[in-house]
């Protein structure tokens, strides 16, 4: 019974934790601009993150090693450093976006400008990573994030023509007035929002931290196979709500406030309240995850103590120092009044471009029978994983050129 509860909790937090500011903003931007025409990318991205996260969880359970540990071992010390720099930079950008997201959630509830909330949010965030029982926090934010299911309810209440919507989704076409490069650019953004690498750094570090073993493989699969697709349903609903309400009026989504308007229309005040709680929890949870991931990647590359291997902060002084520096950097970036929605878009696009750097070594080690024994990838998972290796390889190659060609989607 206790086991069952644990599994249920894991799945629920996986659903609630799936959406972060990247999914939230990108789904809405794309829905308003392209309708359901890019919904298929979300499906492709979700299957991708399932494949990727399942491998990471399995590798972590069997080798007791997290992603960057593996990256350094397989790619060598020099290439892994390039990899580390890129991953850290993108992670910092994501943290900046999430941090601003938390502040915006508070702004939308209080109408006090978000920039004023950033120092406070930063302080609370630091206190949580410094002292509070982390698992409790993670679970509570994951569960609170379920409030975003209000988008599913809203969609249902808006009463769309389901068959027309489905038809649009399965017959994607570039809308008139939009260039093909722009369409692809946003496709990549959506792909990156679903396959954010920090989620995987965090997920695998958590698995090592909780001393996952062979017996946890089932939990791993349930979290990933049930939790992620249901989480993606929230993203799809956000997209559909924007497509229905904002799209016909040619709204270009550039603020979080716009994303909630369909909810207000369909459900009213209570809906907005639920959305704000969910958005707050999602971005706060993601801020925690990105902040810790920044520390994890360094600690795992250099072999520093992190997490439970160092019971008191002073025993992981390098890790803790890095967390503080990262947090300050992200707060400073957010306070420069960089547009949070733009920062989010860049972070998801660059995430997509950087995917092969971590996906590739994980795929290799998931195949190493020396480590994985009978749990190494079988032919089925290898077929899918190879298809995704090709997809993310192509995405990585075309992202920067597309970014320049479309002036980042303008």
């Amino acid at each position: 019974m206790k086991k069952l509860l644990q599994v249920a909790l894991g799945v629920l937090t996986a659903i609630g934790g799936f959406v972060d500011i990247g999914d939230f903003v990108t789904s809405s931007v794309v829905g308003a601009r392209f309708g359901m025409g890019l919904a298929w990318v979300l499906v492709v991205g979700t299957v991708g993150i399932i494949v990727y996260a399942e491998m990471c969880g399995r590798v972590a359970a069997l080798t007791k090693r997290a992603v960057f540990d593996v990256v350094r071992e397989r790619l060598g010390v020099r290439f892994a450093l390039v990899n580390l720099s890129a991953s850290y930079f993108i992670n910092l950008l994501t943290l900046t976006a999430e941090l601003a997201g938390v502040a915006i959630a508070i702004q939308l509830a209080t109408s006090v400008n978000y920039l004023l909330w950033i120092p406070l949010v930063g302080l609370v965030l630091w206190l949580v990573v410094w002292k509070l029982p982390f698992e409790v926090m993670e679970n509570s934010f994951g569960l609170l994030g379920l409030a975003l299911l209000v988008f599913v309810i809203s969609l249902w209440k808006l009463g769309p023509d389901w068959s027309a919507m489905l038809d649009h989704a399965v017959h994607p076409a570039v809308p008139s007035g939009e260039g093909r490069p722009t369409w692809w650019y946003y496709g990549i953004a959506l792909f990156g929002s679903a396959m954010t690498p920090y989620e995987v750094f965090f997920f695998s570090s958590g698995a090592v931290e909780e001393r996952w073993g062979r017996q946890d493989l089932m939990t791993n699969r349930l979290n990933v196979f049930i939790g992620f697709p249901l989480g993606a349903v929230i993203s799809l609903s956000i997209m559909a709500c924007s497509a229905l309400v904002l799209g016909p009026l040619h709204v270009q989504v550039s603020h979080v406030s716009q994303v909630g308007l369909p909810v207000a229309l369909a459900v009213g005040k209570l809906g907005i309240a639920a959305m704000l709680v969910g958005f707050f929890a999602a971005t706060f949870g993601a801020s925690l995850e990105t902040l810790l991931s920044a520390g994890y990647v360094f600690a795992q590359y250099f072999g520093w103590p992190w997490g439970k291997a160092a019971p008191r902060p002073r025993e992981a002084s390098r890790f803790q120092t890095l967390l503080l520096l990262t947090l300050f950097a992200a707060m400073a970036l957010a306070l420069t009044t960089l547009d949070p929605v733009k920062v989010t878009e860049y972070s998801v696009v660059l995430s997509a471009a950087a995917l092969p750097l971590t996906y590739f070594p994980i795929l290799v080690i998931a195949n190493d029978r020396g480590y994985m024994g009978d749990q190494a990838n079988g032919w089925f998972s290898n077929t899918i994983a190879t298809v995704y290796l090709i997809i993310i390889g192509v995405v990585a190659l075309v992202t920067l050129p597309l970014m320049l060609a479309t002036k980042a989607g303008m």
Partner: protein
Amino acid sequence: MTMRITDLVGKPVVDAEGGSLGKVHDVRLVRQAPYGESGALRVDGIIAGKGGIAVRLGYASADLTGPWLLKVVLGRMSRHALFVPWSAFSIEHDRLVVHAGRASLRHPRELTS
């Protein structure tokens, strides 16, 4: 006298006539005593060959058989590898010179101990 293992790894390897044998991929160690005793790990020799990335990733080993696409590409890259015993080479400047004839050198997979 001591040296570091990374003084060896990555160094170019040539035969007595100066022909290239690739680079040092790895160093083969043999455990000759339980851990805890000094000299537990004897340095047996080096693995020289081409396709360092593929070896690094593990595609020279029998443990890695997939995914198919990578095995085909990287397995081929790392196919040619030679074991050179410690006594059969000397370190000269920035390269390793192998004294033994190429015919006497074997693929690491053919080694028994």
